[in-house]
């Protein structure tokens, strides 16, 4: 198809330029070539399939693993102008699901969780739909959450087959060469090689730093000083909802910054208020779990601080990618205290089924249907894997996760350039690095961070105080009357 993509971009979205990689990917898709795209966070992944849908008028099915965030994606697509959008997930109740399934052909963009596609009746329904483009978002989940944690993701190869092998776009923000190959293998692309568009992981405008704290108290003190001083909007990431709330309270009490906690356990309305306040510049800092970020379209986040270290380097790169989307200098800080490692190890223990439970369920297979948590075990049981094999799979998964965590810890303790270390993980070349704005190994950041803040982190003009208008003015502002 010969299309002037820039004209279409202007027509549908009002932008003059594509972000790096977007045009090449669209060109491949319009030529009917399956594509694997590695685009950084904020690289404009949504626009790709939305523009494809607008140009071809075809139906687009997007498989996404993050059920809780799928509604944010629907909102985002609506925000960008598409109205025939729906999310088909287990978060819907029985009746809602039935109505949506009955009217599936009315939607052009259908978000669906891999669990939903595992239901034969839903898959059959989808198979009759004439899918123009199958998008597999967060495609790295095939490998990262892999064989043990999202068995339904592994079925996507069969799903694609059942949908009539539609044109497929696999997208991820971070993927090592091993993971990329794993994605292609699982989707049965062993022979017909899809096109690959790989954008650099490196974000040159983000300064990398980490601080090893003696204990929790030292960490809180460091955080307090940073939050009080650093200019602009920031996100602080936590592994625990409770601690996100506690630290937000502490920062509100002890600093003059406006801070709120945000996590998946909050009701929707509250999350929406906080998200909007942050985007409107009424909030300085959000203390968040990884649930925060997807629906956030804020370019001028100046810093990301990790209060807890993430489970792996991929997650870290994704999360720090939420600062500096405006390409201006920004800062990533990881605060680490040696016990933090155990918090992540506990999480690993919690997410991988205990072998005693597996043993019991193998002997009492009826109980496999009792709880959705047993889904993974049920998958292997149904597949006919022996208990010993499943044990091996889980052991291996655990070892891999521990290895990933060790890589993350090594990043903190790395005696050399952090950027080199980070990019090495993705086999990315770092030869053209700017050493004057790189990481705390190349400069005395921790001795001089206040000057760094003055020099590089600029307050954005969008930052404003929380609304203090009279209620009459608020109503006049909300509903603009035309005389």
């Amino acid at each position, binding site marked *: 198809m010969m299309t002037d993509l820039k004209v279409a971009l202007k027509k549908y979205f009002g932008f003059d330029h594509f972000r790096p990689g977007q045009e090449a990917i669209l060109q491949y898709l319009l030529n009917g070539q399956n594509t694997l795209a590695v685009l950084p966070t904020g690289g404009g992944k949504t626009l790709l399939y939305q523009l494809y849908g607008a140009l071809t008028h075809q139906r687009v099915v997007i498989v996404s693993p993050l059920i809780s965030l799928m*509604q944010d994606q*629907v*909102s*985002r697509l*609506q*925000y*960008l*102008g598409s109205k025939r959008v*729906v999310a088909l997930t287990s978060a*819907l109740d029985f009746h*809602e699901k039935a*109505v*949506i399934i009955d009217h599936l052909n009315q939607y052009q963009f259908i978000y669906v969780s891999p669990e939903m596609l595992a239901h034969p009746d839903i898959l059959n329904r989808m198979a009759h739909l004439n899918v123009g483009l199958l998008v597999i978002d967060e495609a790295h989940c095939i490998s990262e959450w892999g064989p043990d944690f999202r068995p339904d993701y592994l079925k996507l190869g069969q799903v694609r087959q059942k949908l009539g092998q539609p044109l497929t776009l696999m997208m991820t923000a971070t993927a090592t060469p091993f993971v990329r190959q794993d994605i292609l293998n699982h989707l049965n692309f062993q022979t017909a090689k899809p096109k690959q568009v790989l954008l650099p992981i490196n974000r040159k405008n983000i300064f990398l730093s980490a601080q090893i704290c003696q204990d929790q108290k030292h960490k809180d003190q460091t955080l307090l000083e940073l939050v009080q001083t650093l200019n602009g909007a920031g996100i602080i990431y936590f592994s625990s909802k409770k601690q996100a709330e506690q630290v937000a309270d502490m920062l509100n009490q002890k600093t003059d910054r406006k801070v*709120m906690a945000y996590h998946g356990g909050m009701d*929707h*309305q*509250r999350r*929406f*208020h*906080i*998200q*909007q*306040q942050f*985007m*409107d510049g*009424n909030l300085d800092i959000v203390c968040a779990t990884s649930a925060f970020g997807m*629906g956030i*379209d804020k370019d001028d986040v100046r810093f990301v601080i990790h209060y807890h270290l993430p489970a792996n380097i991929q997650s870290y790169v994704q999360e720090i990618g939420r600062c500096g989307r405006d390409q201006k200098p920004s800062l990533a800080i990881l605060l680490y205290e040696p016990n933090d490692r155990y918090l992540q190890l506990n999480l690993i223990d919690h997410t991988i089924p205990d072998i005693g439970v597996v043993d019991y369920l193998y002997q009492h297979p009826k109980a496999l249907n009792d709880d959705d948590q047993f889904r993974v075990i049920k998958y292997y049981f149904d597949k006919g894997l022996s208990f010993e094999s499943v044990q091996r799979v889980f052991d291996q998964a655990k070892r891999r996760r521990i290895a990933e965590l060790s890589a993350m810890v090594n990043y903190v303790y790395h005696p050399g350039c952090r950027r080199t270390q980070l990019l090495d993980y993705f086999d990315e070349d770092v030869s053209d690095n700017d050493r004057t704005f790189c990481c705390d190994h190349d400069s005395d950041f921790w001795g001089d961070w206040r000057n760094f803040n003055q020099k590089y982190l600029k307050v954005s003009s969008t930052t404003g105080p*929380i*609304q203090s208008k*009279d*209620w*009459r003015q*608020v*109503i*006049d*502002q*909300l*509903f*603009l*009357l*035309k005389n």
Partner: protein
Amino acid sequence: MDLETLCLIFGSSTQYRRIKAMKNALIGRRTVSNLYWALQYDMLDFVDSLHGQQFGDDQQVALKLSQAGLIVVDDRLQFKLTKKGQAIHDDYTAQLLPLKYLGVSSRFDVNRFAQRFVFASQIVSEYSYANHKYYPQSLGYYDDQLLKHWFIANKRQNLPKQFHDLLRGFLSRLDNDQRAEVFVQSLIGHHFSGMTEDQLADSLKTRPAIIEIQWLQLYGMLLLLIQKHPQPNPFMQLTAGLEKPVISNSAKKTFELYRRQMVPSIDQIVAQRRIKQTTVYEHLIEAAIMAPVAQFPYQSLIQPKTFQQLTLTQPDDVANWAFDQAAEEVPGLSFFEFRLFQIYRSKTAHDD
């Protein structure tokens, strides 16, 4: 929602009340026992008004409030407000609208109405600025569809002006700028992101639970106002399907069947509805609790002689009269008759 604040609002300095029973009434756990205690605590109007809310642990709250000298707790975990507790109760209730406006949440799903109204305001606000690029809220599939169809059907009716006028009128009539302020901060719209309950509570030096209850009361008032507006009006559709039954549907069926019978017989209902006799009793007790005294046939369900004996032997505190004690005085007394008598007495005492 924070249970401490609720205990201070719904507690009494003259009557011992169980935290658990109060909590169950507010979230609408409609067992006959919970409803019975809601009747005794004069909380029937608030049954289910805080549906779906999560509360803290009863014992911890009791301990905290009693340590602060705000309540006294007896060995059955019933509490009474102290003088200091009563002062805070007075302060909290003064911050709220009259409590009857929380009662609207007992008859309508006000919370869901508020969500729909906030979403509708966002859509209309952005529309008034001709802005199509914004993050819409999402309330779930049905309400999202409802809002979508509502907007398509009504967008030619100068919605920005209608919202503007409705809210200006409604909030002016409150005659209280602070409450009007609390209301508008629940909204989201063009370059306006409102406040959460804790941000508002912080700026007004009060408790987040007070703000949450104020919101429910204000949206309850607004809902009633919309229903009284000349029909048809575009806001009416936002209230569709939100009515809650006062008596559960099944209890209502049983009660109506009983009332329609020429010669009322419980056995006949058991046979007709294919339910257990104890379930029929529970349904009738629920109906007795929820219906006005004059509309419930106490006389045909309590033997005249039993009624007379109960009247003669009743203690001052009928509400806490134990069945075992009453049964000693009135041979052959059934629990069903006993409970109906207690309900009758409580209701007529209220009427006095």
